[in-house]
């Protein structure tokens, strides 16, 4: 019976979305509320939810909340038996925490059922994997991102700079492929106001790199974890399922991050994401390894001075010793509250399908709200690549990408490592090993209460069932 009804909704929805005007609206009278945020993945959608209502009859209300406190609000909402919100905005690292709590609907069957409709094959596989927990698809990407390298292409391409760089370091100046090169370049471009850069005197100090070291919103871990991963480190010990971030690559990554400090703006300990990328946007940093969520600004003169005074370049991030370590990926996604009724579930799924459809993504990209994308067809579109130069990097680098941390204790990890790494960077903790050991011990003191099988299950990245044939 339930299945029949589901089928009926599905058929009705297909007819509605196909534009069959005579079809009755399948979700007339359904009201959906989304617990959302005020970032581009949502703000570009909020003004046009009326179009979805016109198509399906379902009324959608998107509530926007600040990022600080959002995850707390979602957890409290998820702990309640009767939902106030049917749709939830999810940052991909939360997926394990919400998944193990049983807070989200498994979208696997829905996505497989409507595979053709949603052009499942067109979605970059790692973007789907990023939203899975134990193989279940618990959220659907609404905005995809990678950690990429952004640099001053105008300076990198300047013949004078290239010659000087080669003379000093013995190799050609280009987007770095190793972290050592990244640091060389950072050192090379760290210059004072008035010195020359690209043949012109600098109006402001130029910094070689701009990374986050702040504790606010765990910013420091959002830089450290990708570094650590690209140095070949992993979060967990595959034998015990405990925190293993005390090994050689982990220490190396922390020390590497500290070694970048002289080339960072002096407010490095207070740098949050947007202040960090602000240096890049004003053309005051030569390069920044950063999430692609703000890359769109670098080529937009209304948002970044760099677009006027220089040129932004984009590349996949370097790796340790040039080893083909994968890029780091992330997703900002929409999910369905596990406590909704069947009808609301179908309506919510219809909304997710509509809001992440290729048509809508293309429309956003054309309108200038492209930001980060997760569909190959859009990232590969030559016109859009022209408009968004980093699309090509997103497309290419995600072929070999690793997902972010997805553990149920993610918040513990982020907070604990944020504190300890920040102490290390501030010089309060003498060595990286000491800082990392303290942090790992704190995390492990909670994990040790669980049997090893549970811990191993939590760290196991089961391939997305939605992609299985």
């Amino acid at each position, binding site marked *: 019976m339930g299945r029949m009804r589901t089928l009926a909704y599905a058929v009705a929805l297909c007819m509605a979305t196909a534009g069959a005007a005579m079809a009755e609206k399948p979700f007339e009278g359904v009201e959906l509320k989304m617990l959302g945020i005020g970032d581009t993945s949502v703000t570009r959608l909020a003004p046009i939810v009326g179009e979805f209502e016109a198509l399906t009859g379902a009324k959608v209300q998107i509530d926007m909340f600040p990022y*600080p406190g959002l995850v*707390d609000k979602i*957890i*409290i909402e998820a*702990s309640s038996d009767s939902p106030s919100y049917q749709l939830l905005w999810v940052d991909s690292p939360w997926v394990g*925490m919400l998944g*193990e*709590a*049983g807070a989200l609907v498994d979208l696997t069957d829905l996505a497989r059922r409507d595979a053709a409709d949603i052009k499942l094959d067109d979605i970059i596989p790692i973007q789907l994997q990023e939203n899975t927990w134990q193989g279940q698809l618990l959220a659907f990407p609404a905005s995809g991102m990678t950690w990429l390298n952004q640099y001053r292409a105008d300076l990198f391409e300047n013949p004078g700079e290239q010659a000087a760089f080669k003379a000093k370091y013995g190799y050609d100046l280009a987007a770095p492929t190793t972290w050592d090169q990244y640091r060389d370049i950072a050192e090379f471009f760290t210059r004072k106001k008035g010195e020359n850069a690209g043949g012109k005197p600098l109006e402001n*100090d130029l910094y070689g790199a701009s990374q986050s070291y*702040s*504790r*606010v*919103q765990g910013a420091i871990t959002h830089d450290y974890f990708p570094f650590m991963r690209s140095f070949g480190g992993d979060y967990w010990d595959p034998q015990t399922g405990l925190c293993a971030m005390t090994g050689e690559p982990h220490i190396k990554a922390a020390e590497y991050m500290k070694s970048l400090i002289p080339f960072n*703006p*002096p*407010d*490095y*300990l*207070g740098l949050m994401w947007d*202040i960090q990328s*602000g240096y890049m946007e004003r053309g005051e940093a030569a390069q920044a390894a950063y999430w692609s969520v703000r890359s769109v600004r670098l080529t937009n003169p209304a948002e970044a001075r760099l677009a006027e005074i220089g040129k932004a370049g984009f590349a996949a991030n370097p790796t340790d010793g040039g080893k083909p370590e994968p890029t780091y990926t992330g997703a900002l996604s929409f999910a369905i509250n596990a406590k909704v009724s069947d009808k609301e579930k179908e309506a919510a799924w219809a909304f997710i399908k509509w809001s992440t459809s290729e048509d809508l993504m293309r429309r956003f990209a054309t309108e200038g709200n492209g930001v980060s994308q997760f569909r190959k067809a859009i990232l590969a579109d030559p016109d859009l690549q022209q408009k968004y130069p980093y699309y090509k990097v997103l497309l290419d680098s995600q072929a070999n990408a690793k997902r972010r941390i997805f553990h*149920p204790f993610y*918040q*513990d990890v982020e*907070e604990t490592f*944020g*504190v300890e790494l*920040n*102490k290390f*960077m*501030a010089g*309060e*903790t003498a060595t990286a090993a000491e800082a990392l050991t303290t942090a790992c011990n704190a995390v492990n003191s*909670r994990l040790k*209460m669980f049997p090893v099988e549970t811990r191993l299950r939590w760290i196991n990245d089961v391939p997305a069932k939605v992609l299985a044939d």
Partner: protein
Amino acid sequence: MAYQATRNRRIFVLFLLPVVAVLFLTTIYPMLYAGWLSFRNYDLAKPFIPRIFVGWANYAEILSSGTFLHALVTTLKLMAMTLSIQLVLGVGIALLVTQRLPGMGVARTLLLIPMMISPVIVGLVWLFLYFPELGYLNYFLSLVGLSGVGWITTTTWALWAIAIADIWQWTPFIMMGTAAALHSLSPEPYEAAMIDGNSRWDVFWRVTLPQLKPVLISLMFLRAIDAFKIYDIIFVLTKGGPGDSTEVLSMFIYRESFTFWRMGMGAAASFVSLAIITVLVTFFFKSLNRDRSALE
């Protein structure tokens, strides 16, 4: 007269009862719930963790935790810094704005504006000032030839940075309360003091201040209680960093209750901190009452 007094007392009790009843009703469930939590291992985000009774284990862990002690010490340090400066500045400014001169009402209103900004937003506003490179404060300092400091980015200055933002926001609280009290002071003692030929300073010290004392004590009480709970500004400015230099009790409680979702630990920490502030305030109360009886 005795009959009158008893009758009056009955009416006064009638004044008091509804308030007590309302407050009791609105707080009883949250307090019982928190008390119940504090003896439990309760993780709101991870329902698969058994929510078992753990006795006093949460309290034991908190009291033996270096992090909690550090947070307590930081909180007390911050309280000492903010309260003392707020008191002196607040009273000083109140004396200025209660002078019988034109424009004082306007000045007083303008000075209240800092208090009208939400503490979370105060944090953001002060970020504008504090950024070592991009901030206004170091720029202003450089204009007068001083080299700037890393306000929120060095462990030496971060706590002061928090304190300054808090002082900026809450000095108007003391100022306004004091100004209101100054207005309602009875003028006779002044006239007497002036006739006696005392200097202005003597008059302030011997006549004004003793009269202000009850109001000042009330104001400091309220400030102390709120300062003990200071949270929003830190959440935005440093989130306890750099390192752990601005970790206060509220940050500890927030992290345990929400980030780690160990609600039992958070609740236990709340009761411990309630006990500490109660002891502090009672101590204050006692010395206050002693003063009172000495006066009477």
